[in-house]
């Protein structure tokens, strides 16, 4: 177990190095630079040069890369071009909001998506299965911004039940009022992300459930006279969950990226929104930091998923 974990972490670190390197160079391959974007009739070339120097952009690119790596090892992601604040600080301010959103969405995926998948599998071929299948296919193909705007229109504008954006109403309140306010603001963005992602969970659960229900040991369980629910929950579901867990684990990584659109539409102050704003300002350091977080979350989720699967399926022997 220890050796396996060590191996996975080393592999993860290597992946991380490759990904930050690619990010670093891709950002700098963009035409123009953060200073020329700020060009303005009011600002002379001397001031622009001073800005380039301040940003460290006057140095050759490989030197910038070395400086960046050195900083990275020390946990220093540099200063944001936009507002001169440490990138780490900027990201840490936004990260909890994204994590909160992802936490809510994943919990809902499990408690809503899995039972629906199971239901579809049990009622395979019946009307309810068909309805679930069709809804899920619609869900998978729906354009996320369209969905988000529809929710906004219905719940925020038409019914006036929920706020249109942000994570809370400024100024933030205290105690319970604040949490309720945040919960209210979180409903629409989480619903959007839930709809966009629930299809995979339902379909994977359904398909693996169908496969498992054909297995000999399930027939044996029925033959023993066990109750239907007991068989489904104890014998079948645990095994059927393996592909579902894998999918959710892999999805979390892409969900952070996919949150760019949802967070932007709902003015949710998370990492996705930060990426959107920073691209517009060509804020390299913040983008590097945000992509680093994305890479870390994907790698971490992969490791965690492997561990959970090993726990679910004793046949997979870690480090074996």
């Amino acid at each position, binding site marked *: 177990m220890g050796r396996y974990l060590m191996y996975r972490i080393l592999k993860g670190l290597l992946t991380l190095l490759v990904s930050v390197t690619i990010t670093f160079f891709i950002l700098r391959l*963009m*035409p*123009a630079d953060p200073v*020329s*974007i*700020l*060009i*303005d*009739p*009011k*600002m*002379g*070339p*001397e*001031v622009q040069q*001073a800005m380039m120097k*301040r940003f460290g952009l006057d140095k050759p690119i490989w030197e910038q890369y070395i400086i960046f790596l050195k900083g990275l090892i020390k946990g220093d992601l540099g*200063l944001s071009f*936009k*507002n*001169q*604040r440490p990138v780490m600080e*900027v990201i840490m*301010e*936004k990260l909890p909001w994204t994590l909160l959103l992802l936490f809510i969405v994943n919990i809902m995926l499990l*408690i809503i998506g899995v039972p629906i998948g199971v239901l579809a599998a049990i009622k395979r071929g019946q009307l309810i299965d068909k309805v679930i299948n069709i809804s899920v296919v619609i869900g998978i193909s729906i354009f996320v911004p369209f969905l988000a*705007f529809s929710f*906004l229109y219905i719940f*925020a*504008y038409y019914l*006036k*039940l*929920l*706020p*249109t*954006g*942000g*994570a809370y*109403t*400024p*100024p933030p309140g205290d105690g319970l009022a604040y949490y*309720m306010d945040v*919960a*209210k603001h979180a*409903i629409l963005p989480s619903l959007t992300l839930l709809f966009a992602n629930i299809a995979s969970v339902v379909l994977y659960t359904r398909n693996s459930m169908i496969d498992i229900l054909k297995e000999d040991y399930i027939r044996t369980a029925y033959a023993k006279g066990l109750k239907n629910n*007991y068989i489904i*929950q*104890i014998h079948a579901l645990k095994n059927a969950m393996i592909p579902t867990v894998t999918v959710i684990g892999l999805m979390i990584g892409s969900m952070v990226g996919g949150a760019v659109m949802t967070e*932007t*539409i*709902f*003015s949710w*102050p998370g990492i996705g*929104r*930060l990426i*959107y*704003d920073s691209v*517009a*300002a*060509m804020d390299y350091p913040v983008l590097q930091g945000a992509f680093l977080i994305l890479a870390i979350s994907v790698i971490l989720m992969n490791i965690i998923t492997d561990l959970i699967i090993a726990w679910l399926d004793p046949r997979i022997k870690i480090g074996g």
Partner: protein
Amino acid sequence: MKLKSKRLSFVITILMILALLVTACGSQQTQTTDEGENNQGQTTGPKIGGNLVVGITGDPYSIAPWVSNDLNSAMIANLILPPLMVTDENGKKIPYIIKDYKMSDDAKEYTIVIHDGINWHDGVPFTAEDIAFTAEYTVKHKLGFGADMFANVEKTEVIDKTTVKFYLKKPQVNFLSQVGFWINIMPKHIFEKVEDPMNFNYDGTGYGPFKLKEYKKGEYYIFERVPNWPLANNGLGAYLETVTFRVFPDHNALLLAMKNGEVHVSGSAMPVASQKQLEASPDKFGVLKVMSLGYGYFGFNYKNELLRDKNVRKAIAMTIDRDAIVNTALQGGAVKMETPISPVYKDLVKSNIKFPPFDLEGAKKVLEDAGYKLNSEGIREKNGKKLEFELIYRTTTINADSIVNIFKANAEKVGIKINLKPVDNATYTDRVVKQRNFDINFIEWGVIDDPDSSLATIYKSDTALNFMGYKNEKIDEILEKVQSEPDYQKRVEMMNEFQKEFIEELPTVNVYVKINAYGYSKEFEGWSLTPGLFGPIAAKDLVKVYKK
């Protein structure tokens, strides 16, 4: 496992209860605000009170305007550090924090007198020392606009608490109207100890009608009124108790929040579609409109041999259908610009010197006479060189696609082929600003202020923003001279000369001036605005707003 499923259903029940609670709270809140409105609706006329929420699209880079140069930072800074000079209804600069000023006849000495009785929010008096300090400090630390605008200062002399004198190296008639409009004065007592302003955590101490109460970067900024601020409402100070800025990612989100009553006024200029939505409920919303200080134009790159031919530029200018662009492409959200200088500046366009009018037949004739003949593909050519150009434009400019397509369709009617090249901001900056690698460019200037004295920054042959690479000795001479002519009337005449030369040369064809529109809620009254940077959120205008 049974137990687990019970736990699951327990979680679901809790969630459902939570959801119910949330909706219940929501409806309760709307009820209380309704009652609040009814109670306050009985009293009329301006009085102190009210919490205004301003929606802006885009996050202010910083609350220290000296280290950032984005419009949103400047907007929030304008409440705590209002400018020395503001614009009047014709876009001309007039004193605000300044009581009076005098420029010497040679435009090399400025004596500035500020209003008495203004204090920094921490109680320290706001004096001439602060202005002198700002001039020196921004140059020393190369801070944003200040570094360039104060670069011409030779010596600063503080005469007394409210009087400061600037001695300039060379004559500059727009010194104060530039500096006073663009630079926020720095608190000397705070910054004199600061060695590294870029990494200094400025707390927002200002001298304006509002002071910064609290903020969370990228989310909200709350300001509260400064009681008895001397320059507002006869020494009463602003009416509004607090002003809260909320940051939205785009116009749609902002519009929805306004219609939902979460935001009372838009601090960012709204697109036409948003305006129309608000105008559809005139009992609840109003829209304030004012001409922008910038304009949209097509520019010609003189590196292109064919575009260097005056006849080609003239023919293209004659194919531009301003009516179609303003009414169709911009949906009426702009006014035609037929003069080289924007119609905002009334004095400067009285002369009525206009670009060649829209005339396709005339354009054909100009090209025909100059020897450009139609070939088999329907494109004109001369000596084997085809009139085929690439038109580069930014996709982020609102309605740009419609504008360039109208341009293209008309140009092709007279036999000039136009290839559209839509690009993102960064590529545009790279191609047009840095490399100057383009044929024709379309762009909207944000702000071109003081055109009677500052057009040198875009049309003089040696400046960075002359993307066209255009050089005309007469224009260079006028633009140089006008900067040291102290008499406004004489400057107006000189700029008429400039405009005459400009419509002959046509380095750019200016097409329209955007109308900036700002929606507001009728729960608040007292709105006003002048052509400027911040619409109704300019400190001078916002202090007059009150809750109905």
